[in-house]
């Protein structure tokens, strides 16, 4: 369970979120500029220092505090067992795909590291890319590798910020299903931020609606996204065959 109490101001933007994500897979749905990425960065432990520090933040995962500004506690990004993948794949350009995926496995012995790298690349259907350099990858391939890199350390909290935007619909859906089953198997609580209703509906998970920095609804996808679903259905029925 992920507990969040967050109050942060950046210029005229005010992010105020108080909630509990009880499901293993939560989708934060909202338009661009709603504060999804800001929220995910705080959860990851980024932007918690001055000058971007939130006024108040309390984040706990399964009862363990990750951040608590009232007591001055803030675990560093690498000490939260948290991985994040953003829209921008941010692969290290000077390292091979294998070295990128292995980067977070610094403390793992070499043979386990190699097998984990192969396993993760296999999971995201990118085993054939293992020796490539990031500059030789397409956008979709880079996102797959970024996912493999984030999963490799087996995080307890997985934050995904529109991580499949460069993949086409079918590939994205297939990968989401694999990711969801991996996250369930490895007990990794996942928070997926998206402005794409089809992504949000695809996993049938708990959905939180974020609008202008405020959570306006939280619950099962079919209920929370009822309006979006109708809108999508109408759009599809209007499209010519």
């Amino acid at each position, binding site marked *: 369970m992920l507990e969040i109490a967050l109050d942060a101001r950046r210029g005229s933007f005010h992010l105020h979120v108080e909630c509990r994500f009880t499901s293993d897979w939560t989708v934060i749905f909202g338009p661009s500029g709603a504060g999804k990425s800001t929220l995910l960065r705080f959860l*990851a*432990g*980024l932007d918690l*220092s*001055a*000058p971007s520090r939130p006024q108040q933040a309390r984040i706990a995962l399964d009862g363990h505090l990750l951040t608590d500004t009232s007591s001055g506690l803030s675990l*560093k*990004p*690498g*000490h939260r067992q*948290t*991985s*994040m993948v*953003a829209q*921008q794949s*941010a692969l*290290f*350009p*000077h390292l091979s795909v294998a070295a990128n995926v292995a*980067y*977070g496995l*610094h403390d793992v012995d070499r043979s386990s590291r190699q097998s984990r790298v192969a396993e993760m690349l296999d999971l995201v259907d990118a085993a054939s890319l293992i020796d490539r350099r990031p*500059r*030789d*990858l*397409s*956008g979709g391939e880079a996102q797959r590798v970024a996912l493999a*890199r*984030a999963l490799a*350390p087996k995080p307890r909290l997985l934050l995904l910020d529109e991580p499949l935007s460069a993949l086409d619909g079918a590939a994205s859906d297939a990968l989401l299903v694999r990711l969801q089953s991996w996250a369930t198997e490895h007990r990794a609580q996942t928070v997926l931020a998206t402005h794409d209703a089809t992504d949000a509906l695809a996993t049938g998970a708990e959905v939180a609606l974020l609008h202008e920095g405020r959570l306006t609804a939280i619950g099962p996808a079919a209920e929370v996204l009822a309006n979006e679903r109708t809108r999508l259905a109408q759009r599809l029925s209007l499209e010519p065959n």
Partner: protein
Amino acid sequence: MDWQALALTLKLATVTTVILLAVSVPLAAILVLGRSRWLAAVEALAALPLVLPPTVLGFFLLVLLGPRTSFGRAITSLLVAGFSAVEPALVDAARLLGASRVRLVRTILVPLASRSLIAAAVLSFLHTMGEFGVVLMLGGDIPGATRTLSIVLYNQVENFDYAAANRTAAILLALSAFALAAIYLSGRPRGGRRA
């Protein structure tokens, strides 16, 4: 040709460059990765040698008996610029994957800012090769100990030995041209990039 002076100059330039990089790389990394408000003051202090005349620096160093960091001048600023140019998303990714600051600098910042690092090394080497005021003020003109090529050149001109001065100047010029060519060659693009 004063081979002793040439060897001494190369030795001085090498040692200075190594010391300078050993100090400047961590300092630049702290300035780029740190978030304390005191860092602005540290940065200003690091940039101070940029605006001070060499004789003033030489005098201060002479008084303080400090290390010969005055050769650094723009080196820390150059490294700060190089490290700052590394995409913040890459730094965030490395931190999220558990990289310590040292590992982050060693495996991400230094390789990705290698051009700035090479430029910093070459410029500090060249600057030391051509340094005159500080070396003379700090060490004087002792053959084999403090007499560098610049001081030899100065002495040759003072003695109206223009033929020897020409040769000394030609060596300094050739070394500088070679080093600058190395900087520009290191910056040439190596192949295209696909989306």
